[in-house]
């Protein structure tokens, strides 16, 4: 088990390092520089600015300084906002994270429930309906769902309620009510993925011998499904949680834009369009590291939850 953990940690570290290096070189290759934003500037001022931001050093030197700084938790200063990138992230990430966690929660709980229900009613109308919804959920991009919810649920219902009254706010991020619609919009895709996966794995498990034994013992169907089958059927779902976290958090960019949520997505785009090297690099590296670590945690948890993984890895 220790060997497995060390191996996974090593890969995670390597992935993060590669991400940092890729980010660095891509930002370097980007056209334009942060000081050519239309304002006239004398050569001396330009040189002084380059000196201040360390842009006159050689590229490998800059890379080493950059990596060193990142590991000290210093992502540099945004040229556009003249604020440390870490500050910007610290201000905006909580909203993104909050939205992501809510969406993930809805997706996991809802997906497990729908998948199990469809598997138990295999071949019946409920099954077909659940799977039809799942395919549609996979096929509609989250920003469209977000816009539709905003229009039909928030705007139209508020209009029906009359002036001054509202059920769901149209945009913003101040109260609990603000957080419901964005979370639903963001969760629909992953929810569909999880419920399809859950259905397949549940069907597999329901054919296992130990389920027949449980039936023969005379246990109720509810008991069999929720206590005996669910635990084993959950395993494949846990393996995709890592990638799904990545999908949810990157998907949050667009949902944030639709509902005007003060999250990190905005800075990502601004960093790119304004040639703000350090802002783009910082947000990318932060997101990358966050997602690599969450995948790592999920994988390690998988080893803890399913003893079979531990044994097979030990044999290896």
């Amino acid at each position, binding site marked *: 088990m220790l060997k497995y953990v060390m191996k996974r940690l090593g*890969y995670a570290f390597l992935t993060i390092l590669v*991400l940092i290096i*890729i980010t660095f070189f891509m930002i370097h290759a980007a*056209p334009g520089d942060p000081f050519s934003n239309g304002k006239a500037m004398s050569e001396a001022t330009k040189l002084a600015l380059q000196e201040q931001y360390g842009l006159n050093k050689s590229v490998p030197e800059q890379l080493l300084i950059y990596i060193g700084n990142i590991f000290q938790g210093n992502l540099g200063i945004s040229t556009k906002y003249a604020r440390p990138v870490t500050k910007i992230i610290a201000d905006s990430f909580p909203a993104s994270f909050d939205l992501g966690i809510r969406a993930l929660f809805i997706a996991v709980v809802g997906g497990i429930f729908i998948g199990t229900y469809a598997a138990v009613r295999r071949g019946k109308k409920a099954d077909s309906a659940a799977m039809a919804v799942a395919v549609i959920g996979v*096929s509609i*991009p989250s920003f469209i769902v977000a816009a539709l919810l905003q229009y039909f649920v928030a705007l139209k219902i508020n209009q029906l309620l009359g002036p001054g009254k509202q059920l769901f706010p149209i945009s913003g991020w101040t109260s609990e009510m603000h957080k419901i619609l964005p979370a639903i919009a963001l969760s629909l895709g992953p929810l569909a993925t999880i419920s399809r996966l859950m259905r397949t794995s549940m069907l597999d498990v329901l054919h296992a011998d130990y389920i027949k034994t449980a039936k023969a013992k005379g246990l109720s169907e509810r008991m069999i499904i929720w206590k005996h089958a669910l635990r084993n059927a959950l395993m494949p779902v846990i393996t995709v949680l890592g990638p799904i976290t*990545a999908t949810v958090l990157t*998907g949050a960019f667009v949902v944030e834009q639709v509902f005007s949520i003060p999250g990190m997505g905005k800075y990502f785009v601004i960093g*790119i369009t304004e040639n703000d090297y350090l802002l783009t690099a910082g947000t990318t590296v932060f*997101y990358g590291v966050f997602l690599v670590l969450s995948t790592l945690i999920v994988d390690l948890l998988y080893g803890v939850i399913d003893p079979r993984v531990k044994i097979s890895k030990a044999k290896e």
Partner: protein
Amino acid sequence: MIPKKKPNVMSKINHNETVYDCDCEVSADEFTHIGPMKNGGEHIARRSVGYFQGAVEYLMRDKLALILILILLFIVLGSVFIPMLSSYSFREQHLEHVNAGMFYTAPDGHHHLFGTDSLGRDLFVRIWEGGRISLSIAFAAVLINCLIGILYGGISGYFGGRLDNILMRVIDIINGIPYLLIIILLMTIMKRGIATIIIAYAAVGWCGMARLVRGQILQLKEQEFVICAQTMGASASRILLKHMIPNILSLIIVNLTLAIPGAIFTEAYLSFIGLGVPIPMASWGTLANDGIVNFQRYAFQLLLPAFFISITMLSFNLLGDKLRDAFDPKLRR
């Protein structure tokens, strides 16, 4: 003595008479040779159907699959021909009637089936023009992914050993980084345009296909026909391309179909956060992005591209599922 029962004509055996007396002895000379069956001896009850032919026939019998194929054909052909044949171009502005509603006919005789956008451009043409761009991006990106994936996975699986190990670790690392982040980064250093989106998506999208092909090649490698080809001195590239890839072609086709919605989504996503094709070009993603500005007043400007994106993704997803069933002989019965 001639036996009562002649064993030569199979169809005439009466099952009621097949009670043999155990005492009777039948010697070889009691039988006479009458030659092969006269007619129908070689008759095959059912037409012999090849693998792909069988799959196609299975698909054609499925009504839903047929409808999906027709929808996709309609969208593809429409994207190719409608912008060509239309009386408006996708960038032509009609400033007298901006933000016109659906089925709008202007006093000057202009007819806009889907209305116009905030710059007075005909939405009907723009939608099909957008389909052209979105679909060509999706098809091109997925095809490139597929080629890289087959090559990479094939080499990795066939040669195995240390090379396989290194190649797979590279994939592990690329997969560890969310692909949208890499695409966004790539988009920053390249000029906006169709080629950029294709290249950016192709740079990271091949990992899944490579893994799939590698897994299949690992299994096929152990089979007799491959060993046979090896003993006959076929080169590695010949074995891979002529013997192994055709065997996994069905799997590749299914995954290709299921990858297209992903590519359409990525294009829409990038356009939506403002990294799509440059104006005045239109893709479904940029149309949706334009539409969201006026969404509260002119909802159809978003709903139309949204509908086209969704229906195309849905059709490809469902068709992929159907293809998977059709190519799986176990499910076909």
